[in-house]
């Protein structure tokens, strides 16, 4: 299997300052230990633990028995043919499916150990921590600045707002292009810029996780490349889950890849998880023949 020339994917030990002794709590994941050189050793901590998750829309079942764990700080790609439930699964991770009529979920999705469909869970808090960027860029009809500043304002993060906006725009690799026209309408940006604006909007409130639903599918190749570069740079700060129908993109970008497909075992095809592993394994030596068929392009 020939992988396309990929970028170097390095899992770097994050060079964050080691724990200081001045009593400030540095919020980190359990399992981080300080090494002698003053780095953190990041143990692969599971952010999302999906246990036997099935999704129904009314009587129709869209997904069956999905079991996978998404690790902190990694990029996890969900690939597969259209209609196999990858977007459904993604949207279930931040409860964006709640507004779809007839939506029902079985099984558990544990986020840092908490069932996100549990009793006391506040939907809004879920989305505050688990952000999403959609397939088609959907900027608000406001200025560029206001697009990014809107959510932080809601959250009450009013101090240092300008810095926060700048940092988000830098993080989305958009700052240099818009820094002189922050007051202009966001609708005047190109498609690729709008999508980066949506990413900036999402990271401005510093979510824990970023869900990306085919973020580059509506964009031209150059813009797509920019988005992919972006994901590498965002990786350490955020846990990223990306749905893509573009296998090469998954191979370029993701640490681990999940392959979904339609199970035609019963009468109706139901989406299910076929294989989930390190990206090199999925594309290099997949275990399941269906995976192999897909990644070698034997079917759509």
């Amino acid at each position, binding site marked *: 299997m020939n992988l396309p020339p990929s970028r170097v994917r390095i899992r770097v030990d994050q060079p964050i300052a080691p724990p200081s002794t001045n009593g400030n709590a540095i919020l980190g994941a359990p399992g981080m230990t300080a090494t002698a050189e003053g780095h953190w050793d990041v143990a692969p901590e599971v952010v999302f633990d999906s246990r036997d998750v099935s999704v129904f829309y009314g009587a129709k079942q869209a997904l069956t028995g999905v079991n996978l764990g998404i690790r902190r700080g990694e990029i996890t790609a969900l690939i597969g043919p259209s209609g196999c439930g990858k977007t459904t699964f993604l949207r279930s991770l931040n409860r964006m499916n709640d507004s779809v009529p007839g939506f029902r979920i079985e099984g558990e999705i544990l986020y840092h*150990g*908490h069932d996100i469909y549990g009793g006391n869970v*506040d939907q*809004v*808090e*879920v989305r505050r921590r688990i952000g999403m960027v959609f397939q088609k860029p959907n900027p608000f009809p406001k200025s560029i600045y206001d697009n990014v500043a809107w959510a932080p304002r809601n959250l009450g993060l009013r101090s240092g707002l300008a810095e926060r906006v700048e940092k988000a725009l*830098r993080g989305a690799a958009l700052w240099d292009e818009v820094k002189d026209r922050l007051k202009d309408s966001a609708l005047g940006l190109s498609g690729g810029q709008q999508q980066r604006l949506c990413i900036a909007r999402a990271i401005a409130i510093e979510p824990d996780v970023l869900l990306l639903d085919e973020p580059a599918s509506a964009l031209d190749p150059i813009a797509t490349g920019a988005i992919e*570069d972006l994901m590498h740079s965002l990786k*350490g700060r955020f846990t990223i889950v990306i749905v893509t129908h573009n296998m090469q993109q998954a191979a370029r970008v993701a640490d681990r890849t999940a392959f979904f497909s339609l199970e035609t075992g019963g009468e109706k095809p139901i989406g299910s998880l076929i294989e989930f592993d390190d990206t090199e394994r999925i594309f290099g030596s997949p275990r399941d023949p269906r995976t192999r068929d897909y990644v070698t392009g034997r079917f759509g």
Partner: protein
Amino acid sequence: MSREAQPVGAGDRPRAYDPAAPLTATGNLRRRQIFSKLTEFAATGAAFAAIAVLVIVVYTVIARGAGAISWDFITKSAPEGVAPALVGSAIIVGIGTLIAAPIGVLIALYLTQYAGGRAAGFVSMTMDVMNGLPAIIVGVFVFTFLVDTNGTVGLGQAGWIGGVALSIIMVPLIARGTQGVLRLIPKSQSEAADALGVARWRTVLSVILPSALGGILTVTILSIARAAGETAPLLLISSNASVDQVSINPFEAMANGPVRIYQLSEEANPAGFSEAWGLSLLFISFILFASLGARAMVARSKRKISS
């Protein structure tokens, strides 16, 4: 866009919240959620308050008017009944419909079949303005033009002139509504006819109008429901009628429900109130049923078109 330019990882402030904490609403979010729930509550309350007003009004009319209703009430003239007003209203509204329906449909046809951009805009604006005319002004105009003996035509009060006044109110409603119906008809039908070389007028008469007939009927019923309740235009045009006997002569003033109710309410004579409530009940029943029925027809035809 080089990676070095982006402040990643090193020196970042830790997050302002603990991602691993339970996903309940706390602090700032709790306040925001309470406010959001309050607004939801207010919006729901507003909707049900509006319905409550409707229910109260209808209930009052039923409660106070039911007692007056009887076979005599409907069939006899004063003092036992209101038959003249019922018959008069039916005739006046009927005349209004006969005038307004063809004109409204023709205007809608003009807007959908013939009018270019500017002409369509102008005619649309005309319909908007006509729609927004206060009913009393329509009455004053028709009075001046047709009724007033010192005016232009000077015919004196007459039921048919009341029909003319009502038609001015009905035409914009029928035109707009029919325009909406015509727009729903798939273009493929008329395009197929054009491709076969069929003349436009044949297509309109034998393909388009029959398709639109149900919708036009619905629109007409809705405008009848509206016209049946109008008082202001008739106040000056058909108010001097006697209520002692049923008249089917549209060339003189005819009794009609809305004007009669208004006169009884302004007389402030409690003895007349019972008759006014009874008349109100009859009219509001007709109008509400016609409105509901028309809307049900619209809903059903929308489902048919989209299926």
